[in-house]
């Protein structure tokens, strides 16, 4: 007995949809494997698989405790540095401020956090004033040397005190970590990238 056409049609749809789902799964897997976001590839270095960004609580330059996980829902750009830095931090902060401006309204969903590697000099007030020069929404974070050492270790940050004349400087990792809206440590942007690159990646990651 021949099967009714409707059955064959439904069976065909089922096969097609399964094949389509398989193709979609395959393309997503390949996309994930290549560090691609829907709609493009990030300019930053991408971690695969992404892990949950190590959480921490430090003193915020806004006067309250700063806990990273409280920023879930926002795209967090996490930088490490110190306000007396003359070579890296002013450039990084200026680039991030420009990127946030260029994002326009979407910039409200982007939060820059700046963790000091020099708690001896970087008081809450000093960080607040320093960051306000770039963007009033930027928040600094400081704490005891021990607290900050734990955070640096969790992110693989290098910070070495170096004598400079009568004072000192700190040679530190200059990359910026990108934590997505779900709190995953998704990517790392090395020093030297333009504001346009940050805007490009932020737009892709904020789509989610």
């Amino acid at each position, binding site marked *: 007995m021949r099967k009714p056409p409707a059955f064959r049609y439904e069976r065909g749809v089922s096969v097609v949809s399964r094949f389509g789902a398989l193709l979609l799964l395959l393309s997503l897997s390949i996309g994930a494997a*290549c*560090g691609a976001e829907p709609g493009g*590839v990030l*300019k*930053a*270095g*991408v*971690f*695969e*698989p992404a*892990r949950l960004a190590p959480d921490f609580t430090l003193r915020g330059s806004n006067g309250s405790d700063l806990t990273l996980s409280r920023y879930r829902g926002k795209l967090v750009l996490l930088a490490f540095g110190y306000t007396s830095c003359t070579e890296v931090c002013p450039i990084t902060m200026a680039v991030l401020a420009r990127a946030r401006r260029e994002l326009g309204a979407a910039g409200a969903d982007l939060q820059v956090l700046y963790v000091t590697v020099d708690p001896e000099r970087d008081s809450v007030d000093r960080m607040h004033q320093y960051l306000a020069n770039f963007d009033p929404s930027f928040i600094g974070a400081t704490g005891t040397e021990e607290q900050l050492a734990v955070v640096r270790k*969790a*992110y*693989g940050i*290098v910070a*070495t005190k170096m004598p400079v004349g009568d004072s000192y400087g700190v*040679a*530190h*990792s*200059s*990359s910026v970590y990108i934590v997505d809206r779900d709190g995953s440590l998704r990517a*790392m942007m*090395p020093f*030297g990238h333009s504001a346009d690159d940050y805007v490009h990646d932020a737009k892709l990651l904020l789509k989610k």
Partner: protein
Amino acid sequence: MIAARWVWLWGMAAAAVLAVILWAALTPVAAGSRDEIFEILKGTWARRMAGDKVEILPQQIRLTLGVRDILVLINRDDVPQTFGPVLMMPGQSFRLPFGVASHYQFACTAHASGQMTVIVDATPASPWTRLRWRVGTLLRSGRWP
């Protein structure tokens, strides 16, 4: 008669060398994959703890835009590892594309200098730069690109 044969042989050899040089200079460079992959193999940490000096990443990495310009680091060990500029969990990879020819310095605790350099060369576009790039790659890696 013998002298004529030598002349002919030398002529053929010179023509072959010239053909290779022309090919190397005129053929656009292309790569199947643009990934330059470095892996921390399983058991590396244990070997280091046992006193083995295991080099996992050269102090200087050379890449070429448009040919091999994506640095891929993979941690296949069972413990977290600082690999170049990044801390990577077991099984995690880090894929860093480069879009501008330049010298990049990264802090890296794995090296005595505390630094790792990635040199990204421009895409070899002219015959001379193609030839120089192919010879340089051959000398550095021992394989004909």
